[in-house]
């Protein structure tokens, strides 16, 4: 065997035993074209006196390297966005649940008590000298609701700020909250960037998708991207096309964010145009009822009617 071929250098070569930082770096960033009998090589080169010693050093080094690298990845900003958006959903859900309890209790104390988180704010601000012990408990519960509601808002702000630095193009196209949810569903930005646009389209609709694949349901048109205005406020007949167009651009945005990182304002413009064209088809169809044909000749850009009220 030729000595010292660079393509076949073990992780330990050039290292002092006990140099964990060096070992971690070598394990993480090193490579070899092919493996070798590393324990024998380590003894040969004096890194270890025996096989046992080598394995002990290997164990120590791999545990340090894998543990630290995994922790570092978990600390990365895209993972932080995911934790934050999940926490935001949790706090919102809990605030609403507790507010229901407050309303139910409050109405037994005061016939014209209000409902919802709003009413909890009201209760907290109220000063009542004649409060009975039960009123104190209701007010204290309302305070928790307000705290949770405030925390949800703070988390939303954090998500918005962080996702804009982690995935600026995705955040611009999807809106920060949807961008964060897509990251959460994919696992991280890299996974999202590797996901096909047809999968992005149905992320969050896994139950419906697998029901479809089993043959017992139609294919889902959209998953969590339904929350996007371009899907929700497009006529149901055209929603599938809108979802496909949106998913396509979101996928491209995620890939640019992961692999390139620069801002591409053109993406948003292209998406706006695609959606306008898709919605225009529907406006045409509305005008020429029951003909079933396509009408590409009319250029109609008016706001479509139908089920939406907001722009």
């Amino acid at each position: 065997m030729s000595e010292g071929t660079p393509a076949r250098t073990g992780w330990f070569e050039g290292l002092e035993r006990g140099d964990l930082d060096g070992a971690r770096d070598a394990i993480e960033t090193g490579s070899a074209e092919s493996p070798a009998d590393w324990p024998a090589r380590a003894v040969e080169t004096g890194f270890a006196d025996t096989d046992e010693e080598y394995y002990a050093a290997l164990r120590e080094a791999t545990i340090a390297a894998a543990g630290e690298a995994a922790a570092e990845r978990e600390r990365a900003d895209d993972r932080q966005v995911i934790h934050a958006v999940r926490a935001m959903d949790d706090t919102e859900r809990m605030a609403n649940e507790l507010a229901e309890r407050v309303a139910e209790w409050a109405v037994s104390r005061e016939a014209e008590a209000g409902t919802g988180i709003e009413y909890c704010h009201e209760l907290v601000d109220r000063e009542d000298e004649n409060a009975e012990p039960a009123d104190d408990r209701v007010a204290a519960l309302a305070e928790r609701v307000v705290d949770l509601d405030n925390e949800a808002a703070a988390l939303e702000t954090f998500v918005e700020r962080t996702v804009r630095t982690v995935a600026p193009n995705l955040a611009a196209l999807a809106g920060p909250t949807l961008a964060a949810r897509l990251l959460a569903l994919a696992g991280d930005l890299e996974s999202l960037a590797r996901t096909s646009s047809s999968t992005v389209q149905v992320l969050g609709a896994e139950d419906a998708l697998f029901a479809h694949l089993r043959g017992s349901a139609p294919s889902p048109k959209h998953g969590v991207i339904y929350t996007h205005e371009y899907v929700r406020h497009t006529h149901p007949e055209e929603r599938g096309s809108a979802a496909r167009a949106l998913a396509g651009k979101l996928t491209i945005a995620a890939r640019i964010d992961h692999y390139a990182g620069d801002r591409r304002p053109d993406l948003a413009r292209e998406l706006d145009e695609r959606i306008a064209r898709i919605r225009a088809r529907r406006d045409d169809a509305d005008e020429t009822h029951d003909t079933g044909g396509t009408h590409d000749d009319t250029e109609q850009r008016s706001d479509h009617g139908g089920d939406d009220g907001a722009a």
Partner: protein
Amino acid sequence: MALPEGVAYREIDGEERLATQGAAVYGEPTSAEWRAWDVQRSKLGAMIDAGMDTGLAGGDGVLYLGAANGTTASHVADVARAVYAVEFASRPMGDLVAVAESRNTLFPLLKNAHHPETYAHVVETDLDAIVQDVATRGQAGVACANRQFLAADGRLLAAIKARSEDATADPGDVFDAALDELRTTYEILDTRRLAHHTDHLAVVARPR
């Protein structure tokens, strides 16, 4: 068929169960120093329990691809000489590291099994077995790319997951395609569909 040395059936909680000796990992029931190897959770456990000849003898050198949080890898490490445990996801790695800390024979690696060159400077040659349980597309390709770590008489013990290749295709077709690809590099010795692990094909193979 002989069990690998260190693997035995023991009576645990009134049941005869596959077991190994080592520090408990995932809340599995134990009896004296033996801990039950849950064959419903572990595909390799199910292969051994089903009587497949895995070629594992005890004291083996093993490359474990897709170690996840170390449920199965911990049992392999109980009876092996050395287990190189490759896992690409950072989330389960915390658990896997904890398993490694509780025994001397497990070496965790945060690496992608599709790219063996990124760990060939750590994992030794002439290993007795590759245990593979990676739920990503291209599972047969992963097995072929990692053949270089295996001794000439070593064994590939793989659980091929149909869903990971193509969720819509018939699993039988997916398995046939995977086996065809494996045959470019391996000789298939045994295959079996496992109870408790529907949608998986267990494969035992040796290098050609």
